């Protein structure tokens, strides 16, 4: 039985990390004009109660069937996927879900993240250790024959970067920027005097979500890259990564597997690139043509929160689409009521601070914002700065205070 000491403290860590990450994402996007095609708050608010109710029901069903948490984690596979569902916590519509269920879910999220990330649930060491050292060593040993060295085959390394960029763009269209519902970057791992970093994309042939993409050239993309020991890689809680220098610049060798098949020659790789490019461009054309069709965009946006749970639905013998009619109905009734927060635009300091407190305190902060709260924000800012001061990357706008004084 998987147990965690001081679960309450762990849950606070989960919310604290989530709050910081939401703040960082918002800061980087400025005032929200750059979200495509909708501001995430709109979609989050419309789906949050359904996603949480469904997750609660699915986890409880599996528990009743005596599934261990390790087994449930094995069905979900990606900790990054779970991390990305944490964006839903600040949604005001979550008041429709009982506190008891929310507490249960917070506990299970923490436990699953601990299992799937080998105890580093919040990427506190700026890594996403999905595999342990033994597994990494075994993988390299067994796949040495498929290793492609950049020095010997520079063209293949170049196409690898382009192919991965394409797959990433594809996932951004499928998941409206929430590509980490498919993308799983993990590592960095130390291996002898090298750094190993893996990039995976799961469930790419999402034909059941969009018929249009059922013929995507592959369902699973897996690249395991070997980098020099000086390579600096940081992975954050939600799956974002920072590197110095860039991946294509630093990569020394790699194994590329598409649907488990090692790709070892240039001709085959080029063919995959062409086919992927064709599939992505077809999707771009289709979505571009429907950019004014709000009903279409909204329904696809609602679907994308449930599709990544399909392995859980399948495990309990259900179809992931069963819930969708209810979600559409709720969205239709409530979409005009959702208020998009713009804390960095036209809000005053206290209002912005209040928003941040709501994010951190799961929407339950009722006190007026005063000296104590501003002090607390300064403390978060200090911690946030500390994180980025330790980071080898520039820290241009990671400051709550600068955000507030900018108003």
């Amino acid at each position, binding site marked *: 039985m998987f147990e965690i000491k001081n679960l309450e403290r762990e849950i606070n860590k989960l919310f604290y990390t989530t709050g910081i990450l939401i703040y960082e994402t918002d800061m980087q*996007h*400025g005032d929200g004009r*750059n979200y495509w095609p909708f501001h995430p708050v709109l979609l989050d608010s419309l789906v949050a109660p359904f996603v949480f109710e469904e997750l609660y029901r699915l986890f409880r069903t599996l528990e009743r069937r005596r599934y261990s948490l390790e087994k449930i984690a094995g069905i979900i596979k990606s900790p990054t996927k779970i991390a990305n569902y944490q964006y839903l916590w600040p949604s005001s519509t979550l008041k429709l879900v009982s506190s008891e269920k929310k507490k249960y879910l917070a506990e299970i999220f923490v436990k699953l993240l601990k299992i799937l990330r080998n105890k580093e649930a919040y990427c506190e060491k700026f890594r996403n250790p999905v595999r342990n050292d033994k597994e990494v060593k075994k993988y390299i040993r067994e796949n040495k024959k498929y290793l492609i060295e950049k020095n010997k085959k520079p063209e293949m390394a170049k196409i690898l970067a382009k192919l991965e*960029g*394409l797959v990433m763009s594809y996932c951004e*269209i499928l998941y409206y920027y929430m590509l980490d519902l498919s993308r799983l970057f993990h590592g960095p791992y130390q291996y002898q005097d090298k750094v190993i970093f893996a990039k995976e994309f799961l469930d790419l042939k999402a034909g059941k979500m969009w018929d249009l993409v059922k013929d995507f050239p592959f369902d699973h993309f897996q690249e395991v890259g070997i980098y020099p020991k000086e390579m600096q890689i940081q992975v954050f809680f939600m799956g974002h990564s920072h590197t110095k220098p*860039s991946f294509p610049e630093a990569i020394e060798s790699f194994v590329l597997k598409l649907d488990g098949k090692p790709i070892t020659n240039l001709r085959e790789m080029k063919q995959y690139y062409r086919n992927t*490019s064709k599939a992505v461009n077809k999707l771009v054309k289709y*979505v*571009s043509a429907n950019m004014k069709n709000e009903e279409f965009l909204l329904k696809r946006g609602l679907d994308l929160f449930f599709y990544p749970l399909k392995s859980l639905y399948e495990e309990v013998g259900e179809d992931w689409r069963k819930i969708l009619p209810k979600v559409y109905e709720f969205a239709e009734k409530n979409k005009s009521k959702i208020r998009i927060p713009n804390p960095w635009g036209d809000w005053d300091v206290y209002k912005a601070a209040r928003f941040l407190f709501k994010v951190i305190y799961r929407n339950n902060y009722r006190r007026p914002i005063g000296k104590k709260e501003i002090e607390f924000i300064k403390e978060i800012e200090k911690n946030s700065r500390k994180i980025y001061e330790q980071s080898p990357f520039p820290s241009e706008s990671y400051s709550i205070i600068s955000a507030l004084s900018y108003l």
Partner: protein
Amino acid sequence: MPKQKIILKGIPASPGIAKGKAKIILDPSENHKMREGDILVTEMTNPLFVPAIQKAKAIITNVGGLTSHAAIISRELGIPCVVATRKATKILKDGDRVKIDGTKGEIFLIK
């Protein structure tokens, strides 16, 4: 040696240096204007810009930060990118020859 004049500064979002012709794309419907090796200049990219990005040697945007779309995708592709220049789409014109320094966040006009 052609003269170089620094005309814009922004946040260095993906390192490296590239030279090429600027192509202003304000909307994905203009993706077809992009030629292989052009430098994509835009307000901010979104996933529908992918056909233009595939051909781009570098990216310059008016807005954004280190985790904005253009920054992330250019780092994955290994092409230089400067974001948050505020006015690149106003200052640069289609066909201008530019040099972009993605390490320093500087853009030069080559005469």
